């Protein structure tokens, strides 16, 4: 052994707290999730595309120079040109304005539908999970039966009945059973959390049930809820376009992407551009929301936390 100076063998005061210092910086759950999302290029790209689509839906009909209902018998079925960027339809209406006007309707339906079913589903699932026992049992039986009725059938039937084809009645048709999936998911999450001890602690301290639901349970289901909303938006957009396609949706001169596609479909072989633009918009929007949803799910999954 080589010679080592004797003073090296002096005792050193060890602060065990130093030992617990972690090498990697501590960041909060939401910051970590955002960081992970940022690295997901596909998700960020989707976010940008969606942002652009929304912006265009707002300003599109304004910058085109034409009104979306403006009929021009002299320019029927024109292909895209410098005057009509997307061409015109069978009544001579400018397709550029119509596509973006339709975008407003489709996107609003998508987002509103998703939000309504998210809110209703969360409240329902939350109550079921919180009270548990018989209440939970009955509530979930109802959901199970509603859930087993094929969604599109319900939508079709209700649309036939309400017949007014306004935005409101469409939303009712779309969300009538749409919230069931969310309710089940939220209930499942909450049951998991509820069994954890800090909830029991709050109850023992006498916190009111409503407060417990709002303060503790709901924030912790937020992450799965966000992902779920992001996936259901494209579903609602699709359902709306499906309805319009079979003739039950938005009526002219109002329009949605689905309605545009439906009208264009018959003469599609002759005027492909009439179907192309609304179709592209639907596909792009649904695609972006789905990819964003995938990215959000990966980013918010606490098990993947690094």
């Amino acid at each position, binding site marked *: 052994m080589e010679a080592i100076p004797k003073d090296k063998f002096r005792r050193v005061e060890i602060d065990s707290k130093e030992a617990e210092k972690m090498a990697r910086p501590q960041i909060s759950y939401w910051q970590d999730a955002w960081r992970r999302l940022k690295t997901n290029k596909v998700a960020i790209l989707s976010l940008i595309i969606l942002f652009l689509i929304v912006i265009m839906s707002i300003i599109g009909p304004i910058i085109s120079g034409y009104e979306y209902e403006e009929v021009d018998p002299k320019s029927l079925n024109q292909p895209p040109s410098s005057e009509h960027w997307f061409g015109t339809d069978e009544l001579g209406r400018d397709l550029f304005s119509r596509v973006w006007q339709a975008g407003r309707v489709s996107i609003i339906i998508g987002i509103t539908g998703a939000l309504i079913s998210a809110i209703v589903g969360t409240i329902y699932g939350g109550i079921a999970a919180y009270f548990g026992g018989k209440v939970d049992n009955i509530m979930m039986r109802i959901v199970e039966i509603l859930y087993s*009725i094929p969604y599109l*059938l319900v939508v079709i039937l209700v649309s036939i009945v309400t017949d007014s084809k306004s935005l409101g009645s469409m939303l009712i048709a779309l969300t009538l059973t749409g919230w069931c999936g969310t309710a089940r998911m939220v209930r499942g999450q909450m049951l998991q959390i509820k069994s954890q001890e800090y909830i029991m602690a709050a109850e023992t301290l006498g916190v009111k049930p409503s407060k417990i639901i709002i303060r503790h349970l709901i924030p912790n289901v937020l992450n799965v809820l966000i992902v779920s909303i992001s996936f259901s938006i494209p579903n609602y957009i699709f359902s709306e376009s499906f309805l319009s396609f079979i003739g039950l949706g938005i009526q002219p001169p109002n329009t949605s992407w689905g309605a545009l*596609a439906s009208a264009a479909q018959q003469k599609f072989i002759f005027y492909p551009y009439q179907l192309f633009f609304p179709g592209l918009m639907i596909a792009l929007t649904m695609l972006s929301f789905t990819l964003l949803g995938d990215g959000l799910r990966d980013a918010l999954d606490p098990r993947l936390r690094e």
Partner: protein
Amino acid sequence: MGRYIVKRIIYMLLTLFIITTITFFLMHSIPGDPLAHMAKNLPEQVKANYYKKYGLDQPVIVQYGKFLKNVFTEGNLGESLRYPGRSVTETVLNNSKVSGRVGVQAISLGIVIGITLGIIAALFRNKWPDYLVMFIAILGVTVPSFIIASLLQYTFTVKFQLLPTTGWGDMKHTILPTIALAFSPIATYARYMRSNVLEVINQDYILTAQAKGVGTFSLITKHILRNAILPVITILGPQIAGIFTGSFVIERIFGIPGLGSYYITSINDRDYTMIIGTTVFYAAIFVVAQLVTDILYGIVDPRIRVSNDNE
């Protein structure tokens, strides 16, 4: 296991009953005269006769009772309002043969190709086969069927003139519709299978199998696939439902005289008896499909099939 099946059957019947009831009452709650389109040119007496014939002069509850009786004892769904004399049941069954053909082809294609692609994607995770399969799958799930169908139609019938645009009769008429309809199940199964395989690969028992010296082929077939495929069976029911609703669109685009396009026509015509009849038929198919799926799952998953009897 037996109890499980019985429970499922009861659920199925209950759901069917509820759907039928709801549909019936919904249709009858629509304001207006169901025979309005006919009534314009007919004298009062004839109209009254028609009313009597359809039982529309009776209170709704009575009509409901008669309806249920007819359906469950004779399978008689009544007569079309639009085309008097046309039996709903007969029309439904005839047209469903057409839809069924395309539907069965599409779902078979969907399952086989979808599951295979999903397995490939999982085994080659994060390499090019994975990205390719996932790309196709994403498209299939998010791009609406009418767009895919229109694209297919344009490419293969107009641009390349390989297949007939619309119509029905031969094998070649079924090719494009089947492909268009199969896109969605292929995509769904591929995605689902991929995530299941990935989950199974990370399980402890796969490590055990490796530690035993099990070769790659046996590892994949006996250990990974057997476990990964279980949850995939559960989505079979909803997939079949999707095929049927997808058919509404596909049939219209390709001009196929199937149940889907007939359904849409009845909706637009407000042919209520037809609507009720077809809806009940669809609902029956959906719930039976769900039932078959549930039973199938119970058979395949040993945890349900063989009940738990700890020492």
